[in-house]
């Protein structure tokens, strides 16, 4: 049930392998990775600001809820902050449970919640200047889905 907030890159392969390898308690492991995208080919870099202290607390709370609701055997959340380039990995989640449905659902829940409930803010830098990434209403709507299921 680990949460890591860091500015240095992480090795997705190493993390996923270490998470899944040698497990006998869980039949299913799901991983998700978020990558800095540059759809228009104009992005120079992205800078992610966060709220030290609250970030770890919020991620831990989200992780605890996922663990309880989907009876997870284990989970991992890694989220970077600081400067990232197109193609860099921003974050990853991994979930382990007895069966795949719980592992998939818990991973989706973790993603939905950390998008709009963990204190991170993305700023994009292009040749034209910088802009804060606006939150999307569909990200907020995604949370209602999980509330209804409670």
């Amino acid at each position: 049930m680990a949460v890591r907030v860091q500015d240095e890159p992480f090795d997705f392969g190493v993390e996923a392998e270490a998470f899944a390898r040698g497990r006998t308690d869980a039949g299913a492991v799901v991983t998700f990775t978020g990558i800095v995208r540059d759809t228009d080919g104009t992005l120079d870099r992205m800078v992610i600001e966060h709220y030290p202290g609250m970030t770890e607390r919020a991620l831990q709370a989200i992780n605890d809820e996922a663990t309880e609701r989907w009876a997870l055997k284990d989970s991992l959340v890694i989220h970077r902050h600081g400067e990232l380039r197109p193609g860099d990995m921003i974050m990853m989640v991994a979930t382990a449970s007895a069966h795949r449905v719980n592992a998939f659902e818990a991973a989706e829940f973790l993603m939905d919640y950390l998008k709009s409930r963990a204190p991170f803010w993305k700023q994009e830098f292009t040749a034209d200047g910088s802009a804060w990434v606006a939150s999307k209403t569909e990200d907020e709507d995604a949370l209602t889905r999980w509330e209804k299921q409670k």
Partner: protein
Amino acid sequence: MIDVLYFAWVRERIGIPKEQVSTNATTVDELVEELKSREERYALAFSDVSALRVAVDQELTEFSASIENAREVAFFPPMTGG
């Protein structure tokens, strides 16, 4: 004294990431009104609080929340993690 923190474009508009505020405000709303009356940059940053989020002692909460006995209040735009 209470620590007031600003993040993302709220920090940019106010011009500082953190300050200590001496206040008699008992709720976040009252604190916002006090800050707005200080200077134009605060009035600008807090002109539409529906575009903002607030955390008291690192817990996301409402603007109507109490800040009595709080150590830290943070203002920021909706979060964009993931």
